[in-house]
């Protein structure tokens, strides 16, 4: 019963939304080339399952690698910013500014450097995703109880040991939380990356596929591809949540406690 209770609300909401969408397309005057009905998207998904899964592979690779790189880079930057006031003043404004860089501006340069492969896409995704990790890591490190650090000092802990025993484990779940936020923008980041840099090969990824389908008036297939991205993003989000629970069970446990 409890399982049913946890699955039922999202399923009901989804059915309701699809129902409204279907009714709007059936009863309204909107052109099917502008907005296909849900059942048409389902048919397109079924017919193009092979093509879409072949296009999901490169996109999944970009997002997976990109998030991991963003997590590693963001965590390291967060730690450096925490440890050094000079670095904080030097790096933080640049990190914030990097979020305002339009990808199209640098896309050509990225292709010039690294060609048509996965590298330019990774760069774009990391650029979009590292920032939330930096912010949550810095906040996680700053939230360590100063009394805790004082206690470690009376136990003769060096700066490095205080970092290792108290600050690093505290920052880990914070960094993963940042990665979960990053993931929400990471999938759309992959779309931006694919559509702004050129790709060689027959299966350039779901982002490219969507643009190609829209241009070819294959709207229902474009929606089917977007649906795959949609489900992929949700799956990634919960995978990271699971990883966080595994890596930092204490953070999960103490959240339920009254403090």
């Amino acid at each position, binding site marked *: 019963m409890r399982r049913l209770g946890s699955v039922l609300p999202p399923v009901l909401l989804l059915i309701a939304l699809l129902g409204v969408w279907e009714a709007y397309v059936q009863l309204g005057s909107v052109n099917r080339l502008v907005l296909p009905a849900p059942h048409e998207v389902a048919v397109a998904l079924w017919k193009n399952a092979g093509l879409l899964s072949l296009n999901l592979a490169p996109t999944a690779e970009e997002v997976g690698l990109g998030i991991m790189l963003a997590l590693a880079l963001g965590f390291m930057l967060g730690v450096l910013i925490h440890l050094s006031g000079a670095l904080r003043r030097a790096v933080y404004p640049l990190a914030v500014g990097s979020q305002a860089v339009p990808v199209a501006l640098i896309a050509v340069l990225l292709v010039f450097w690294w060609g048509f492969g996965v590298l330019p896409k990774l760069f774009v995704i990391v650029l979009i995703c590292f920032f939330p990790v930096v912010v949550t890591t810095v906040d996680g490190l700053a939230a360590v*109880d100063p*009394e*805790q650090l*004082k*206690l*470690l*000092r*009376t*136990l*003769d*802990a*060096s700066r490095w*040991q205080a970092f290792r*025993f*108290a600050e690093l*484990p505290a920052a880990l779940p914070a960094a993963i939380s940042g990665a979960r936020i990053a993931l929400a923008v990471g999938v759309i980041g992959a779309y931006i990356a694919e559509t702004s840099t050129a790709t060689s090969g027959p299966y350039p990824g779901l982002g490219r596929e969507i643009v190609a389908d829209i241009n070819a008036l294959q709207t229902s297939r474009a929606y089917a591809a977007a649906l795959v991205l949609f489900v992929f993003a949700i799956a990634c989000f919960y995978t990271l949540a699971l990883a966080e629970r595994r890596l*930092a069970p*204490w*953070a999960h*446990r*103490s959240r339920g*406690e009254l403090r």
Partner: protein
Amino acid sequence: MRVAGVSRAYASGKDAPVQALAEISLHADADELLAVVGPSGCGKTTLLELICGLQAPDTGTIECRPAALMPQRDLLLPWLSALDNAGLALRIAHVTRARARERTAELFAELGLAGFERARPYELSGGMRQRVAFVRTLLSGKSLLCLDEPFGALDAITRAEMHAWLVEALRREPRTVVLVTHDVEEAVVLADRVAVLSPRPGRVVAEVEVGLERPRSRTDPQVVALREQALTALGQGGVL
């Protein structure tokens, strides 16, 4: 441990500096338990931080062997088991994990904590967490322990259990202890000597020798009499 004529003031924004301690003098002999009682805000925590070398006094001198602090909140690390939390000082001293666990487990068995080794802090009761925190302080290898209201957050029944446990633990592992508390009864039940501080700025207004056999009962007439004596001294210090 000898504290002689120590004063300490804090700057507080635009206002005049706050005098926390004024010309305070205290001593504790080897393996003696000195309790320091006083009203809230009389600089008790400051005193312990001075003894532990976390702050420097404005005037006066502090002579003591290296001291370990046990704060009021247990400050156990949530990602470590009870055993690893208790053995933290050993790990900091570069003892291998296996050897640290071995030594900590011996002490756990000796102090009646066997069976709780693998528990995470959030799985332990408040009393158990304080016991683990005390073992962590013991294993710091320092001969002077500074306990800052270690039982202040516990309920009365748990606190009484903790008193008995602490007396037994110190019988097995003798250390010089400076125990800061606002509970006069706790001070008389546990200490060899009780120093009574005045309200801020804290200075010693009385010293009460306890010198009774342990374990002591709260209702023992001698304990009650000494408690009254310490409370009277607190009153003369301008508290009551």
